[in-house]
């Protein structure tokens, strides 16, 4: 019993160390994060211009707000998770391979990617609110659904990116593989997100929240189980 507990502690400690290392690397390579921020800023500006020239920015519907928002968040998440694998060189992979177990590696990747995409999507939300206005009537619901949705995407796309980068493909392969799988979560998250535009919650809110959490949990579990099989070449 004690042994198992120690094992678990050791696993947790390794994961934490690895997460710390990855975060340091992520923020040392400033061009990666800066590139993603540039992507977000320019796409938001594209949305802003297209709405402005159509003359609909003033009475922007919340639905359109949420459509643009989730499209941008989806693509940002895909880019962020894919580059976390694609920038690993063969030699670095070999180093990790000798240092840690695959579970530690993927767990750390999942956590780091979830954190990075959460920060990015919060920033996206902030920029959206600044530029396009804040249509939500329940801000807490907006934040909650945003964080659950983004976490779900990043967990899903972390594993998909691992597959895509192993297959030697580019980011578009990650998009092709991941988007059909992201649609179930998206269909729920858009519902949850839409609730924040209403003055009160609907009866289905709890149900949808649990389903969304379930869709966070499935990729997490499957990634931990399946990654050891694909990480060796």
């Amino acid at each position, binding site marked *: 019993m004690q042994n198992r507990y120690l094992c678990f502690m050791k696993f947790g400690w390794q994961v934490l160390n690895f997460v710390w290392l990855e975060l340091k690397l992520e923020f040392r390579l400033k061009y990666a994060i800066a590139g993603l921020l540039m992507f977000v800023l320019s796409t938001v500006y594209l949305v802003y211009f297209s709405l402005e020239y159509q003359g609909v920015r003033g009475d922007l519907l919340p639905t359109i707000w949420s459509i643009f928002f989730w499209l941008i968040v989806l693509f940002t998440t895909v880019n962020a998770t894919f580059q976390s694998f694609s920038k690993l060189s063969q030699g670095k992979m070999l180093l990790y391979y000798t240092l840690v177990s695959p579970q530690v590696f993927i767990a750390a990747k999942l956590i780091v990617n979830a954190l990075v995409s959460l920060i990015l999507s919060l920033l996206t939300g902030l920029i959206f609110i600044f530029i396009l206005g804040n249509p939500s009537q329940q801000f807490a619901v907006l934040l909650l659904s945003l964080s659950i949705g983004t976490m779900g995407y990043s967990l899903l796309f972390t*594993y*998909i990116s691992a*597959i895509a980068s*192993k*297959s*030697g*493909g580019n980011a578009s*392969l990650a998009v*092709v*593989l991941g*988007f*059909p*799988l992201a*649609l*179930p979560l998206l*269909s*729920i998250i858009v519902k949850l997100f839409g609730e924040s535009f209403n003055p009160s919650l609907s009866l*289905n809110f709890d*149900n949808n929240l649990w*389903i969304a959490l*379930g*869709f966070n949990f*499935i*990729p997490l579990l*499957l*990634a931990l189980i*399946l990654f050891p*099989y*694909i990480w060796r*070449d």
Partner: protein
Amino acid sequence: MERFLKQFWWKIIGIGLLMFAIVSGLWIPLYQGVEGLSFPNLPILNESIRNLLFHVPMWFSMVFLLLLSFIYSIAYLGTPDRMKDNYAVGFAQVGVLFGALGIFTGMVWAKSTWGAFWTNDPKLNGAAIGMLIYFAYLILRSSVEDEMKRGKLAASYNIFAFNIYIAFIFVIPRLTDSLHPGNGGNPAFSSYDLDNTLRLFFYPASLGWIALSMWISSIWIRYNFLTQEYEEYED
């Protein structure tokens, strides 16, 4: 499994059941107030109730084939072997074919009962997304050259995708509103929804379609295997 797929008896029985279900399904009249063998005459469904013997069993066969593909993918990750990979991809491909057939028969049915070929129904969305997921699986396979690598990556994607897909088509429609029977408070295959005469033909039809789908996939898998062998022989 290999031995089972080569045996004849289940193919004969399956085709027999299917012939029985199709012929009688098109031949038996709807209930007109006369005693005797008849299908229920329901207000909106009318004659289209016969589609129950085609549309629903096709979905059953699709889910069955995808389940087999999933099992072979797990087996492949356990001990990699080319034949298991062949089985996994063959079942998935024929599963997609049956999914497409299910969509077409369902669209015909939806047009006559709901008034449109496509509605925003959780099950329809699930069907469309399922097709997309398995197309992505096939794209992944075609994008990797190395055989071992392709098998491993495709198997792990298949396992990953199947779990999410099953959660999507079996859990969500039960929790939200749907036009399909058995969802959002609509009655499922219960005694007053599916009557006994129809049931007499529905179960054989399901078994028959599943047997047919297995037969088609066994031929398809063998064809693929022989093509591979021939190509290697030529090289």
